[in-house]
């Protein structure tokens, strides 16, 4: 067998110029383009669906919902499309998790699983640039795609907000709007990358990412989000309809009244006289809140006004971004110290 003679090697110098970042761009694109195309197809199909149903909803809302509370609106808009809109918004909660798990999870896990990290990490570019050159473009790509998708969802959600059917703080739409959706997608990607590095196998890493993401998203929606800023407190019943009610309590004579004392008091209310307002309709004179008010109780409500929507979006986006950067930094650190 003959072998080709290789040209003379250039003189080896100590001050090596690192391999340029953009070269890593091709590598990342070549290795992950199929996965990115999968995400694009998935979101594209969802977008087409949102577009088609969204158009119908927009037309129905424009035709029947002025005024918003009319019977026509209830039949032709909220009644016809309400369930669909709720199901769509619930299903979309899973999208960031799926993108993050299926793009982020395998990035490192696949290399570790198949042994190709021994090829990749011994090339001249070095592990640090290789890892950063993979994670950062992919993170930017999934975040940008999610951000674009948010614009479509905001349009989809707009007739519901206009009809007063959903408040922007609603648990099922808040993280699909504004910057939150993109931020959650980024966080899911970062969780996936780290899980892949720790677990070293793609499928378990994907499963772990979905589980961790679900835990984080539930905890945020149910407990964490309401503490971003101090809520406003009001007494009486003059709450704006778009407000997000955080808490509700009564005081009497300046002292907090327990729930059981309220229940006790309301027994009297149930025996209050009723008046006939129609042929077969009776109504209590007072509603329970006014009944309690008349008995010396003060009704307190803590809430976030709709004007807090964007501050809350930026707070949520901000801490998710910080978390993602932290997780990706941890991933890079693990790659650097990972022993074969």
């Amino acid at each position, binding site marked *: *067998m*003959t*072998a*080709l*003679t*290789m*040209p003379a*090697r*250039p003189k*080896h110098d*100590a001050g*090596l*110029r*690192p*391999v340029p970042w953009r*070269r*890593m761009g*091709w*590598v990342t694109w*070549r*290795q992950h383009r199929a996965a990115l195309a999968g995400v694009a197809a998935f979101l594209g199909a969802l977008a087409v669906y949102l577009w088609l149903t969204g158009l119908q909803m927009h037309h129905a809302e424009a035709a029947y919902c002025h005024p918003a509370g009319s019977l026509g609106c209830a039949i032709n808009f909220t009644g016809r499309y309400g369930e669909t809109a709720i199901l769509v918004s619930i299903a979309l909660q899973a999208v960031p998790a799926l993108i993050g798990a299926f793009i982020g999870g395998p990035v490192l896990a696949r290399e570790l699983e*198949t*042994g*190709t*990290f*021994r*090829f*990749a*990490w*011994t*090339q*001249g*570019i*070095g592990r640090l640039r*290789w890892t950063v050159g993979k994670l950062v473009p992919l993170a930017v790509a999934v975040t940008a795609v999610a951000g674009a998708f948010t614009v479509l969802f905001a349009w989809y959600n707009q007739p519901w907000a206009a009809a007063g059917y959903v408040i922007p703080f609603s648990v099922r739409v808040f993280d699909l709007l504004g910057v939150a959706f993109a931020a959650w997608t980024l966080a899911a990607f970062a969780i996936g990358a780290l899980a892949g590095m720790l677990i070293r196998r793609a499928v378990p890493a994907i499963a772990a990412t979905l589980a961790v993401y679900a835990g984080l998203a539930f905890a945020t929606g149910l407990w964490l989000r309401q503490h971003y800023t101090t809520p406003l407190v009001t007494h009486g019943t003059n709450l704006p309809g778009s407000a997000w009610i955080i808490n509700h309590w009564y005081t009497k004579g300046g002292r907090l009244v327990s729930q059981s004392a309220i229940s006790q008091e309301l027994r009297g209310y149930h025996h209050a006289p009723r008046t006939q307002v129609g042929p077969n309709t009776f109504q209590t004179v007072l509603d329970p809140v006014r009944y309690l008010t008349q008995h010396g109780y003060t009704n307190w409500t803590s809430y976030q006004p709709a004007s807090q929507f964007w501050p809350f979006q930026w707070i949520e986006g901000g801490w998710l971004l910080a978390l993602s950067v932290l997780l990706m930094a941890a991933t890079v650190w693990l790659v650097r*110290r990972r*022993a*074969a």
Partner: protein
Amino acid sequence: MSMNVIEASGLGKRYGSTWALRECMLAIPAGHVAALVGPNGAGKTTLLNLAVGLAEPSAGAVTVLGGYPAGSAAALDGIAFVAQDTPLYQNLPAADMLHLTRNLNRRFDQHYAQARLAELGIPLNRKTGKLSGGQQAQLALTLGLARRPRLLVLDEPVAMLDPLARHDFMATVLAAAADDGVSVVLSSHVLAELERVADYLILLSRGRVQVAGEVEDLLASHRMLTGPAAEADKFAERPVVHVRRGQAQAHLLVRATVDDPVPPGWEAHPVGLEELTLAYLREPGAGALPGPARGRDTQPSEVTR
């Protein structure tokens, strides 16, 4: 060239509570095809992983290419590593593997790589996973050599290959070493080809370097003595590496040169590399290391046939 391509001092690597490599002292000079030999689990892969920067030492240090820390930018730049089972991206065509490797390195000789694959008959548009084991190994080797490394490190490169593919693979390695002066360090537990391939031998046993030196020197400093079995014990005080006792005759591998006197009734023969390697592998306690005080000759155990 006086530089050492791999130099280790007090090098150790621990996985959990087990030392895969321990107190490793080693200096492999440039310009050799060095064979790293030892039984399974002796620490060959661990040593190579440390040298190419895939693993971090638990103790001691390892430098490459004349003093660069293993895994540093200069070290990565100058070393091409072909790992065990030649891991490549199975879903990429050979052409994309070339382009990928080119993008991951400062230098890449595209012309060499393409010409080499054409010569080997490896189609550029075929996916790596669809190539035969021998072709995958050749592709991995070609990718490494196209980086024009100063040191080529191969971990069990031929273990999975059939004899023909093994021969072709080693021919490529030897051509690179001979024509381009690439230093080569390869691990293997296939002893049969060592004599043809290697001119430097490192024998690892139980995580320690047992023998290290140029093959020529090792062969010149060992003799096989054959004589009456009854007299074999007379050499108990001599630097005997290994005793093989037959019914009438005993064969002693001793550390001696051609000038050393041969006792009456005994015959001295030169030894081959495989013979020498096997003798040391059978005597994990024996050692032959360059420099004073490092060699520790212990009492040989006897292996009766």
